[in-house]
């Protein structure tokens, strides 16, 4: 079954063709990075305009790269939940039109479910049940995944998402945007022990996160220097801050996995591309007899392939969206419990 996956929930205009939820025939991502750098972040109106200009070209390019024609498409999947409303509208309008004109099924997907499926696409042998940490600029969650599409929320952030903390600290330090990659880069030559930043909620009994205090701590520590335009030891700050975030993410996810008695961990979302996060997860997982899985780097950030894979799974369960599918900018991922 050939599924066209469309993703426009934030700043990437993306489309992909995926066969049977498993084989990526093409994945095209038009990034709006030039605009983001210009404005220092996502401006919803600007992003929505760019999506409207690019969406048709991106879909056509996905078909061309896959060597397929429109008539080969068996179903259309689209991110319709969670994101910027004006951006979601463009992808969803395109998906509904393609579904109608080609007379094939349509399925609307929650953006976070897309990220969860990115790991399944990269690692077909990812076992169930497992514990999943999905972490990006928009969310930070620990989920117990009993099987495909069966999630139980174990913990979530009570304030900033981890990726958001990266963005804000990077902006404060004048390192640019987006924060994840620039801090990862700056941290390469830094000393992780140079500064002792807090590890919020690391010893808490539950699996919730809070990154706002950590961000504030970094900002307060260097506020005066920044105001006086003094040179900062950027690599050391970046490395110490990053280590604090990573420590919390790793400790809580491992604890969740041990409590639920699973053998495998899935770490996904934009922040899962972070090198220090990957290295520390690997070490901690091995020490605890767990196997950890990461998506390939191209599937960490927003893309159409993960949406197609999630859509395939939902379609196989007999789910369909109608042509009246609407977008929902903010809604929790639907939790469906497996057999208890």
């Amino acid at each position, binding site marked *: 079954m050939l599924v066209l996956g469309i993703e426009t929930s934030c700043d990437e205009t993306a489309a992909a063709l995926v066969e049977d939820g498993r084989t990526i025939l093409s994945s095209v991502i038009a990034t709006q990075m030039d605009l983001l750098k210009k404005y220092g972040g996502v*401006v919803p109106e600007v992003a929505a305009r760019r999506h409207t200009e690019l969406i048709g070209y991106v879909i056509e390019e996905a078909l061309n790269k896959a060597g397929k024609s*429109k008539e080969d498409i068996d179903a259309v999947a689209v991110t319709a939940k969670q994101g910027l409303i004006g951006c979601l509208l463009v992808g969803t309008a395109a998906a509904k039109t393609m579904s109608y004109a080609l007379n094939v099924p349509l399925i609307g997907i929650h953006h976070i479910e897309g990220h969860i499926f990115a790991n399944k696409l990269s690692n077909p042998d990812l076992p169930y049940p497992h514990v999943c940490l999905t972490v990006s600029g928009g969310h930070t969650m620990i989920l117990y995944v009993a099987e495909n599409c069966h999630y139980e929320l174990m913990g979530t952030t009570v304030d900033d998402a981890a990726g958001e903390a990266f963005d804000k600290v990077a902006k404060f330090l004048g390192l640019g945007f987006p924060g994840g990659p620039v801090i990862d880069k700056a941290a390469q030559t830094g000393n992780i022990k140079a500064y002792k930043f807090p590890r919020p909620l690391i010893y808490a009994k539950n699996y919730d996160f809070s990154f706002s205090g950590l961000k504030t701590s970094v900002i307060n520590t260097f506020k005066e220097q920044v105001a006086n335009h003094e040179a900062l030891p950027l690599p050391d700050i970046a490395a110490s801050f990053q280590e604090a975030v990573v420590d919390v993410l790793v400790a809580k996810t491992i604890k969740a996995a041990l409590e639920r008695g699973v053998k495998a961990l899935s770490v996904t979302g934009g922040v899962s591309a972070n090198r220090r996060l990957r290295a520390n997860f690997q070490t901690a997982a091995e020490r605890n007899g767990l196997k950890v899985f990461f998506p390939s780097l191209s599937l960490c950030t927003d893309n159409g392939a993960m949406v197609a894979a999630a859509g395939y799974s939902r379609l196989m369960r007999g789910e369909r969206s109608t042509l009246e599918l609407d977008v929902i900018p903010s809604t929790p991922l639907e939790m469906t419990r497996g057999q208890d």
Partner: protein
Amino acid sequence: MKVLGLDTSHYLNSVGIIEGERLLAGVTSSARSDSLVKIIANIDFAVKRAGLTLAQIDGFGVGLGPGSWTGIRVGVTVGKMLAYATGKPICGVSTLEALAREAFNANTLICSIIGGGTKDMIYAALYRQLNGAVKQEGDYYVGSPSGLAHLIKENVVIVGQEADFYAEYIKSLNIPDIKITEIKTIPQGSTIASLAQARLERGDKDNALALTPLYLKESAARIYQEVK
């Protein structure tokens, strides 16, 4: 030639199918905050009402605005993907021109007005009848209703969803010796279709995938504000 036209520039969406001078089907429904939910159902309803299948439509027309930004983006995206998926041609049409077309019998100046979201901001353009069609005079107008009133120095027919309101307003400014009439109407999908048909019959069409809404110059300022 059977042409399907759609417009979502207001908080409404209107779909019409024409063949030559004949209206085969038309449907207009209100949209909540955008036009996404009902637009495909309305297109499908019109196609079936006309006794056709989508494959039997020879070309498309889509209203490019100005108007509600998110509304137009839905319409333009639906229009471009319809043309792409069916392999049929499409023409983008100014929604202000479509409004002016509703007054094509007028022997006076025609002024199309679309509200810009606030009381002080409107989109407008002036037209004159010419050989059964309408021809735009000058540039698009973006600004306050009073600024527009200063541009009107002769008998005029105001066209638009709030034509009565703007006609009253301009009358209240006591511009001497001008007769002001109004046609209260919304941009009709069938009018968009008919304007597109005129171009399609000449072999003229737009690049479907490149179609983009008519935001007009006001937008740059507003976006800049949003960025700041």
